[in-house]
């Protein structure tokens, strides 16, 4: 049952991911993106990472994508299908970054070099899950071991927001 569901969700995720990059209409791309995010959330549920699934839907599908949609609609990109996607160099960079990511993941899962020494093995994760539950496994390291990087990320986002406000604000003499 879980295998069938995984195939369904993975198929939807991959199909709609293709839809995101191949579609011409920005709104269609955006909705395909939401579908991809939702199916990945479904895969998280199959992995019993319920918390991640919920956060995926709340943050990405529910907040960030709504903001994207807001911008697309305000710019009215939806109705005239102009070709405003940059080609050439932009596509090359995108492919290079994607390839690098895929390579890293492949090396990790083929059991090659220990690229992620901070990740424990599957058994250790299972034990931690049984002990602390899905929430505790994420929350505890976040607020103990990795509290400094976590707070720095928060400050980075705050700086970005303040910067955006400063740039966007009209100067009133």
């Amino acid at each position: 049952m879980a295998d069938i569901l995984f195939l369904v969700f993975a198929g939807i995720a991959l199909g709609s991911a293709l839809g995101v990059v191949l579609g011409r209409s920005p709104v269609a791309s955006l909705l395909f993106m939401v579908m991809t995010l939702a199916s990945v959330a479904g895969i998280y549920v199959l992995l019993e990472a319920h918390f991640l699934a919920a956060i995926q839907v709340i943050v990405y599908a529910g907040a960030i994508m709504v903001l994207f949609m807001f911008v697309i609609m305000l710019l009215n990109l939806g109705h005239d299908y102009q070709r405003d996607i940059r080609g050439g160099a932009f596509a090359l960079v995108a492919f290079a970054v994607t390839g690098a990511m895929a390579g890293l993941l492949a090396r990790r899962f083929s059991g090659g070099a220990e690229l992620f020494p901070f990740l424990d093995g599957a058994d250790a994760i299972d034990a931690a899950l049984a002990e602390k539950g899905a929430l505790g496994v994420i929350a505890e390291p976040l607020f103990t071991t990795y509290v400094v990087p976590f707070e720095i990320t928060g400050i980075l986002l705050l700086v970005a927001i303040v910067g955006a406000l400063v740039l966007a604000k009209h100067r009133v003499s």
Partner: protein
Amino acid sequence: MEMLEPISGFWGLAASALKVLGVFTAVMVVVAYTTLAERKISAWIQDRSGPNRVGPWGMLQPIADGIKNFLKEETMPGTANRFYFVLGPMLAIIPALMTFAVIPFAAPLPTPWGVVDMIVADIPIGVLYVLALSSLGVYGLVISGWASNNKYAFLGSLRASAQMVSYEVALGLSLVPVLMLVGNVTLTQVVAQQQQLDFWFAFPLSLGFILFLISAFAETNRLPFDMPEAESELVTGYHTEYSSMKFSMFFIAEYGHMVTASALMATLFFGGWDLPGTWDDAFWWEGMLISGFDAAGAPIMANPAWWKTVLTLGGFGAKVAFFLFFYIWVRWTLPRFRYDQVMTLGWKVMLPVSLAYVMIVAGTILVLDTIGVSYGFTFGLVLTAVSGVCTAGLLFFLDRDRVIKGASVPTRHDRPVRMPVVEVPLSGD
């Protein structure tokens, strides 16, 4: 003597199927009769009779409305984007009907095959599931407004997305104190912990309840927050171009959201299906159905009974009905906010206040834990006092003319400009 174990196997599946069917039917029927209640109560408030032709006291009016909606002509604007125009109502109605799945609606029911939990799906992320679905609800509104290719519909959907994104933050933050007290995110645990505290959370977390209430009104787009469909400004906003059953789907979605929000308020802050007293307490603890712990910390077994399930179901229904009535009451009493007032309230009042309240509750819980007050009546009493002070402060601060000025209140400082006196020479002199 029945088994006090969770139902499983074939009968478990059968019970689940029955619960899904039952809850879906119940929500649809409640939605139908809330529309009638809306019209009846608005009529009473305005000193009219309301619907009174179809059946006794107009009781069959929702059925007549349903038939009317099915038989009306479907319109499709020529400039609309056909695919998204049809997709919009579907995206609006699905989240509205799915949310109820995680809300417990009665005490566990004992059967010869095991104990049936009166909840469709007791998933481990209950509250987060509700937040996730409520954040997806905005897509239906936005897509339909955009696809209509009509400026009023489009303005409505822009307002809807801005408003829902703004108030989602305050909604989430107003839930944090509840989750801190419960220590879990499942709604069954929320009910169980309210039974253990001997307090419904509306008292120890009174300010949280007020913030949740306001955010819930904004999230359901009900007056005084119905900016996305402000009739006097935008025709009817995002569903201007819709007719027939497609319009009806938006209508069902709005009332479905109201029913769910009322059920959430009842569950999170008014004990859910819990009735006063400890006779109905029952929750799962390490595989046992217990009603609490004795002084030594040993579990006390619960004794569920069918009449307890029926009574608690009635209690839950009464609480939900009260909040539905409250929704309608507010709609026909208060005028609509101006759009900038909605945004000011959301970002400059709701967000900082809910953030500060989270810190205050967290601090109080920390202090109580440190000085060794265990989770119970005294714990609740102290929190009630702290929250009461916060609530009184906020209400004083929010009082008229301090933060949100009424639209018709003249400014105090600027005096009207006086007309200059012009000497007009009289003719003939």
